[in-house]
């Protein structure tokens, strides 16, 4: 099980700010996970928006990063400031 976090406006689309998930083995990269989740939530591209960055274990990463060993994967829309 891997922990997936959806921050800011994304939680309105996904209906949750975090969930535990078994990512299918064929989903190997952060980019593939984006696409798979976008379809799963019927998010109409909200998760595919290039301004949405992905962090693996609290480190901002690229879409090519592998997700199989990631304990926590966060989808981060642009930050709003304090």
């Amino acid at each position, binding site marked *: 099980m891997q922990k997936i*976090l959806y*921050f*800011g*406006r994304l939680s*309105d689309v996904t209906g949750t*700010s975090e969930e535990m998930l078994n990512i299918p083995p064929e989903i190997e990269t952060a980019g593939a996970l984006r696409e798979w989740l976008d379809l799963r939530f019927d998010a109409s591209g909200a998760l595919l928006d290039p301004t949405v960055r992905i*962090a693996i274990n*609290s480190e901002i990463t690229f879409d090519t990063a592998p997700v199989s060993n990631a304990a926590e994967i*966060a989808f*981060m*829309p*642009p*930050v*709003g*400031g*304090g």
Partner: protein
Amino acid sequence: MLRISAEPIDAGRELKQFESRATSAGGIVTFSGQVRPHAKQGPVDTLFLQAYAPMTETGIESAMAEARTRWDLESILVLHRIGEMHPGDTIVFVATAARHRRAAFEAADFLMDYLKTEAVFWKKEETATGAHWIEPRDDDYADAARWTKKETV
């Protein structure tokens, strides 16, 4: 020192404690940010602020470290609220202490610009017309860019 918490901030009490610690400073500058009562969409009912631990902390701590390299500071305090707030609540409190006032003023200004644009927070305003996620204003980015220019000197 940095504290991110859902507990209310008592700016007066924090200043008193900060003063009692920063005894050898010549000047202390503080900034309190409050939840605004009005948004573009009308009167604000609730402001909701979300952070991502430990990324939010790490980012603010590096801005504090950067402030220390730029200015001769005796101490820095950054308090930030998360969770649900209402108009008039203190959302952020920054205090800087230095031997001379200019360093304290500039460091507090620098830290606030970081907090308003780059700090890892997501912010939602709830008004009578619904909830809206807020992103920094162009003015906030322009304010923050003032410090980037200095870096190239």
